[in-house]
């Protein structure tokens, strides 16, 4: 059972890839009924994105697709055909929100622009997510995650100062855009409670990331300073440092006296007075880094992390996918959900980011097969006959 927060809302997910599907998944996890509207034949682009379960490039086995589309239904229709558009309008008439991430020029061609859709349902909230939004000189720019991250101004600050700017492999721009899209869609639904009207929400992935510039921006417009990537010099705190079985992130933050940190790491030389202030740690950075390296080499990641937490320090540790899937803390919080999919079988999927005490945990309906719910929605809800479906299929509309 899904959470009840958005019970009664119906959302059409016309998205493909990551940003709009992630937006719609967040809404689905809060309890909205989400119907994916996919292109007949090929479906959501994510169905062709690797990696795949068992490295088998089958459109029902894309791991990105499987993750981003749990708790949704799927119908297929071709919005560029006359009959397909008629079907779409029937769906639009009953929906509260529609989320899409076609390139701006394409969404107009397909009749997914706000003017066309609001003529069918004036109460509809239409959320369009694009790398640079619907307007401005870059609105038709071609973009992937790395290009969006670059032009947002955020990528410049990722990585090491003596190396090129660095991205995360897992397309983070589009997750940030999707999370923003979910918030903005709901804000528009909330506004509808008093206005009675829907509206268009124009989400720019680059701007969602640009909003993170709350430090680099004032560095420049307050004092002309260009903030860059993390310096490679320094004492090793707030950095990834080798421990015995991997990397840890020792931290001086957390407002605890230096001796607590020195005692935790457990190397007597660290107790030297000269390391006890921030200025002292900068001045004696190299020496401190050497001692820190020596101290951390006696620790495994987890015991150090736990001892830091007990000492009210805020050390981190580098965890990989296996560590997280087997994390006792996440297990105690019921974070992972068992999802059973007809093609790939059962696995532990990450659940909702938030815990909502009193609400059911993350629902565990598997991602839909392409067009799995076409007859349920078209026949049972919209009143098409089984014969109608056959003729639509022959026309290639569904």
């Amino acid at each position, binding site marked *: 059972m899904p959470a009840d*927060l958005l*019970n009664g*809302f119906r959302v059409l997910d016309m998205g493909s890839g990551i940003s709009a599907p992630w937006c719609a998944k967040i809404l689905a996890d809060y309890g909205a009924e989400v119907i994916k509207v996919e292109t007949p034949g090929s479906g959501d682009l994510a169905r062709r994105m*690797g990696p795949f379960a068992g490295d088998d490039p089958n459109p029902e086995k894309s*791991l990105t697709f499987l993750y981003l589309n749990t708790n949704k239904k799927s119908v297929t229709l071709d919005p560029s055909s006359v009959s397909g558009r008629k079907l779409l309008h029937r769906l639009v008439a009953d929906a509260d929100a529609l989320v899409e991430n076609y390139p701006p020029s394409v969404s107009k061609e397909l009749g997914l622009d706000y003017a066309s859709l609001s003529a069918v349902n004036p109460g509809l909230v239409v959320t369009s997510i694009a790398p640079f939004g619907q307007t*401005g000189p*870059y609105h038709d720019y*071609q*973009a*992937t995650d*790395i290009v969006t991250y670059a*032009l947002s101004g955020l*990528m*410049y600050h*990722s*990585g*090491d100062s003596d190396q090129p700017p*660095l991205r995360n492999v*897992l397309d*983070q721009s589009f997750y*940030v*855009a999707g999370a923003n899209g979910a*918030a903005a869609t*709901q*804000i528009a*639904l*909330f506004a509808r409670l008093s206005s009675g009207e829907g509206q268009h929400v*124009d*989400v720019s992935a680059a*701007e*969602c990331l640009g*909003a993170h510039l*709350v430090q*680099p*921006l*004032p560095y420049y*417009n*307050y*004092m002309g*300073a260009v903030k860059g990537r993390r*310096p490679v010099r320094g004492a090793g705190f*707030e950095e990834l440092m080798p421990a015995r079985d991997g990397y840890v*992130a020792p*931290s001086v933050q957390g407002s605890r006296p230096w001796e607590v940190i020195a005692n935790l790491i457990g190397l007597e030389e660290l107790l030297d007075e000269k390391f006890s202030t921030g200025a002292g740690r900068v001045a004696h950075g190299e020496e401190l880094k050497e001692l820190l390296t020596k101290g951390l080499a006696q620790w495994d990641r987890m015991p150090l992390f736990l001892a830091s937490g007990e000492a009210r320090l*805020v050390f*981190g540790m*580098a*965890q990989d*996918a296996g*560590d997280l899937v087997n994390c006792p803390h*996440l297990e*105690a*919080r019921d*974070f992972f959900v068992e999802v059973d999919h007809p093609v*790939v079988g059962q696995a532990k*999927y990450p*659940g909702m*980011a*938030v815990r*909502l005490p009193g609400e059911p945990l993350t629902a565990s309906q598997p991602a839909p097969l392409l067009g799995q719910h076409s007859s349920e929605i078209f026949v049972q809800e919209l009143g098409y006959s089984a014969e109608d479906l056959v003729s639509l299929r022959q026309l290639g509309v569904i």
Partner: protein
Amino acid sequence: MPPALSEQAPLKNIRVLDLSRVFAMPFAGANLADLGAEVIKIDTCQTQFMDTTRTITGPFPDNEPGERWWEQGGTFQNLNRGKRSLTLDLRNEESQQIIKDLVSICDVVLENFTPRVMARFGLDYASLKAYKPDLIMVSNTGYGHSGPWSNFGAMASALEPTHGTGAFMGYMEPGPEGRLVEGDVPNKMGNSYSDFLASWTALGALMASLLRRSRTGQGQWIDLAMYQTGTSVIGTGLLDFAFNDRRTQRIGNRHPFLSPHGVYRCQGHDQWVAIAARDDADWVAICRAIGQPELTSDARFADPIARRQHQETLDEIISAWTSGQTSYQVTETLQTAGLPAGAVLTAKQALTDPQYIERRFFETVHNPPEVELRDKGYVGRGWKFSKSEARIKGPAPQLGEANEYVLGELLGVDQTRMKAFAEDWTIGNLPEGGGAPGSVPLDEQVEIGSIVAYDADYLNLLQSE
């Protein structure tokens, strides 16, 4: 001064009590203020307990903390724009009672104390719900309010590797025969990435809760663990472990399937451009755009599989072409050819970037003269509404500017009590104890690497654009 409200502000009737500090929840609160909510920030006169963005984060105008330094921090201003400020001293019971009284007339509470602290203050959700049965509250912590790590503190910089993003981020390392291989050292998005994931997640969860409250009258407690927020955005990687037993992927800026894909050096100091080929058609277009059409028939680059095998050679060819041009020139040439390419902008470049300018992303804020801040641009948000209003409503509040309004007008505290509060520094407009934070000269900051460079004439540079 209360911000002017428009009928089109979606949250115009919502009042928010913002007990939060530092980045994540204060920024969520700032976004609520942009949407028209009345957001009351709980401040304190006791310098040692102040929000650290008021005290040490900076940056200060021209790197000089002014006479009223606690109002001036640039990051503080970005994160707290449009809010009101009430000072209290949460260590005393009277202040704790005022919070409870205030909760009874608020819709939303934001806080990011550890569970231990909130319980000690008697401000946990169960206690506050008694004052406001349909209260919606976000408790943002590193690890959440349940589970064995629930009392552990956390900061974004150390949390990021813990929540696993570092498993999918890292430079490649030299391997056999001059080839680069997957790296061992995790890296970080940096720039407090985890904090912002929490801001956006909180905003979404709050709106879902407000929509439900309007339907059923129920409140909601939102137990937001930044550890989980960070883990939820790497779902593909976690499923790759579940199905294929893969644990990490540290391949620099390369793509597991596409090629070429990376950032390439351009003219100027530390200037780069990102380029990605999505398919073979893009590859052909790249060859033509860089004036080397003969590469399209080079067997080493015939398809993405071959190109990934010869990525080092390919990157050299592309770098040789980009390095003589500015990142904007490369962007323009490749985008004109229909290719995904984009300059890696610094914040300086972002401030004058045509896309950001045309969409009015940076919003100018005017501070009153006593704060001694010139009018400047602040970050907006990544969404525009065709009808609703979302804009920065005003500057960050001066310390305790709403003491009279909140205590006197909203809660009816009488003047005698107000006087007593002022005498023991529970309320006030000045910091108690501690002086202005020090500032490190910009030359020295360049030297230690905390900044790349600085422009002494930045004001003219920004104006001339």
